[in-house]
């Protein structure tokens, strides 16, 4: 809190049901990405690198793994005095029954007491399932310069896709938001909300208390809080983000986001030493590429052992590719084993799955990426 008087809350409750078997036992923010990361490493590392000391993580769906993963905050350096990562699942209170979070805004409302402990001036709301790098300190600076009540990060999307997003219509001179439209049929702008908000906490607190009592409300930032603020003629500003940003909702898009890493100019620039993404470190050997292996155009991390062919693929921590096996256009999640002679093509193989010797999964010309979530016998 000492650094910039801004507290961050990460919404990490979503299941991400279009990721099918990948999110059977874990919430979407805990899904593995990019060889060694989990998706939630991105907002957490962004917070750490932006000088934010206190982060609340709001969990709900299958939160056990996520809880144990983020608790403590040491992995992101968020464990100094007056600093911490706090896991906030729904809880029973003296004056309220145990209730699930009814929406994104309700998740914050139910934790007003937690926030009050820190008495921040600003509140940063983040989503736990987006992949991007962003300096929230710069966004806060813009928020202050605009003397804004709320600032919403936006990204330009292709006009023809704009109707899939929450769209901000702004005054082109000042960037002030004049209108917010959720998934408009006829979009007037291509500035899509990234679900990243900075609010003046006093105002948000008041709004949330009112929203809790409003039975009509769906208790959602996009659907309820933002329209209410605009209605009250509050000063809402858009903060334009330029760079890599991905909301991986489906198996195809998760695969694609991994494949993006094979292009050195992908814009995410994981290699940037000044803005590292921190994650869990496992005690494993550096990757080993054997004398029979053939590796081209691949993103491979520690703990991997490659004895076969790997082309245009991403291998996560501890993945193994046996002799004579082929892994092409695929993503192997942590500890996947592709045994000798097996073939994996255009597939995303889930954590720990074993592809038996000589088996074949996926196909080179499939429309969609095959998700392999169960062991395949050889």
């Amino acid at each position, binding site marked *: 809190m000492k650094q910039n008087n801004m507290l961050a809350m990460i919404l990490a409750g979503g299941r991400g049901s279009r990721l099918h078997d990948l999110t059977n036992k874990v919430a979407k923010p805990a899904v593995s990405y990019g060889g060694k990361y989990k998706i939630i490493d991105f907002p957490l590392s962004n917070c750490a690198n932006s000088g934010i000391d206190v982060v609340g993580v709001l969990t709900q769906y299958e939160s056990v793994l996520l809880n144990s993963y983020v608790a403590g905050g040491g992995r992101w350096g968020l464990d100094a005095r007056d600093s911490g990562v706090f896991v906030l699942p729904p809880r029973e209170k003296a004056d309220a029954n145990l209730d699930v979070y009814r929406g994104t805004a309700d998740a914050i409302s139910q934790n007003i007491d937690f926030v009050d402990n820190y008495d921040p001036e600003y509140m940063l709301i983040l989503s736990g399932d987006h992949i991007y790098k962003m300096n929230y300190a710069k966004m806060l600076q813009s928020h202050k310069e605009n003397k804004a009540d709320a600032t919403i990060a936006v990204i330009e999307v292709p006009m023809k896709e704009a109707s899939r997003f929450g769209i901000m219509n702004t005054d082109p001179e000042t960037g002030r938001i004049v209108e917010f439209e959720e998934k408009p049929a006829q979009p007037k702008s291509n500035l899509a909300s990234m679900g990243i908000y900075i609010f003046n906490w006093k105002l948000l607190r008041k709004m949330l208390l009112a929203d809790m009592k409003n039975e009509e409300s769906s208790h959602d930032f996009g659907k309820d809080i933002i329209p209410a603020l605009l209605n009250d003629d509050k000063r809402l500003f858009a903060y334009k983000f330029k760079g890599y940003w991905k909301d991986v909702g489906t198996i195809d898009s998760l695969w694609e986001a991994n494949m993006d890493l094979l292009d050195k100019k992908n814009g995410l620039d994981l290699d940037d030493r000044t803005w590292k993404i921190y994650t869990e470190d496992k*005690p494993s050997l550096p990757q080993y590429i054997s004398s029979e292996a053939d590796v081209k155009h691949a993103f491979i991390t520690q703990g991997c052992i490659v004895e076969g062919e790997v082309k245009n693929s991403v291998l996560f921590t501890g993945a193994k590719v046996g002799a004579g096996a082929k892994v092409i256009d695929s993503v192997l999640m942590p500890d996947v084993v592709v045994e000798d002679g097996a073939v994996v093509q255009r597939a995303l193989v889930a954590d720990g799955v074993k592809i038996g010797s000589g088996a074949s999964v996926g196909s080179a010309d499939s429309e969609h990426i095959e998700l392999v979530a169960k062991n395949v016998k050889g």
Partner: protein
Amino acid sequence: MARALGIVSFSENHIWVEGMETYRSIAAFPFLGRYRVVDFPISNMSNSGIDRVQIYIRRKPRSLVEHIGTGRHYNINSKSGYLQMLFTDSSEENDYYNTDIKAYADNLDIIERASNTHIVIVPGYMVYTQDFNALLKTHEESGADVTILYHGVDNAKEAFQNCYCVNLNKQKGVASMEMNSGSKKNRDIFMDTYVMKKEVFINLIKEAQKVSSMYTLRKIVNEKCIAEELDVRGVAHKGYFAPITDFQSYYDANMALVDIKVAKELFKDEWPIYTRTNDSCPTQHFDTSDVKASFIANGCLIEGTVENSIIGRDCVVKPGAVVKNSIVLSDTVIGNDVHIENVVVDKFAKVTHLKEIIADPKKPGYIKRLDNV
């Protein structure tokens, strides 16, 4: 039950690794791409349940201190346990007075005050894995005063040149220790590893100080063996063992592990080797890359050929470059069309202008830290 205090010791004065030791102690030498030599003794202790560890540092502390830091990555409880880094601040002009005995004597009050009953002393310059809990048990059951580790080898003529050997009697009692003269093939190499009761240790240090200010622990233990004043027993170590005692042995110790079968002897799932993470992203292999029989740490950009080599973190191997039988330490650049063979490239070096550096594997080449060639 015996509860041991761990001591990671430094090497004796006759050991000096040309080039690399100018920048850091052997304990801080990078090893197999992502480790430091000291990770092995500390992980052994951590895995053996030894959670109080003293690490003695004789010179050039920066690199080692940075690497060990709070010690949290070694999985040692930071409240009931500790990792202490102790410097020998000798004002003596002559390094020969800066001995391990002097270092222990300077810190004897800490050792005396510790509630631990036993001391396990392991070298910070040898790479091996060992369950010290099992060794403690053997030690207690035997009733010996001191138990030491040795490793039987059959190539003592050409290797282990700066090591000591133990001469054992039939009961595995240590009769004496002597420098490896290279005259015999089969020798039992002393692993500079001891287990003893704390009182025995303290008495040895106090006595050694009285006798000679150039004494080392090995010297006094050897004399006690010869005089039969202490019952010193040897336990044979099995598995990978590599003392780093000169530049050749550093090179050979790394290169031996490029054979994954050998590496699997040292790295077992049930015996993790911990190290400090650098949070580098995974390594990128490009279309032009051709990697064979190599270990590659994270954060590298590989566009060239790498064969039978070890590449450290955050290295760049440019298109057309060929790296063969070499050890490339972190943050180095091997430029376009550069061919290196049998070379150790130290950290932050850039090899771009000189297009060919080929050394003899029996006399590997060395490129200095931060060098531009």
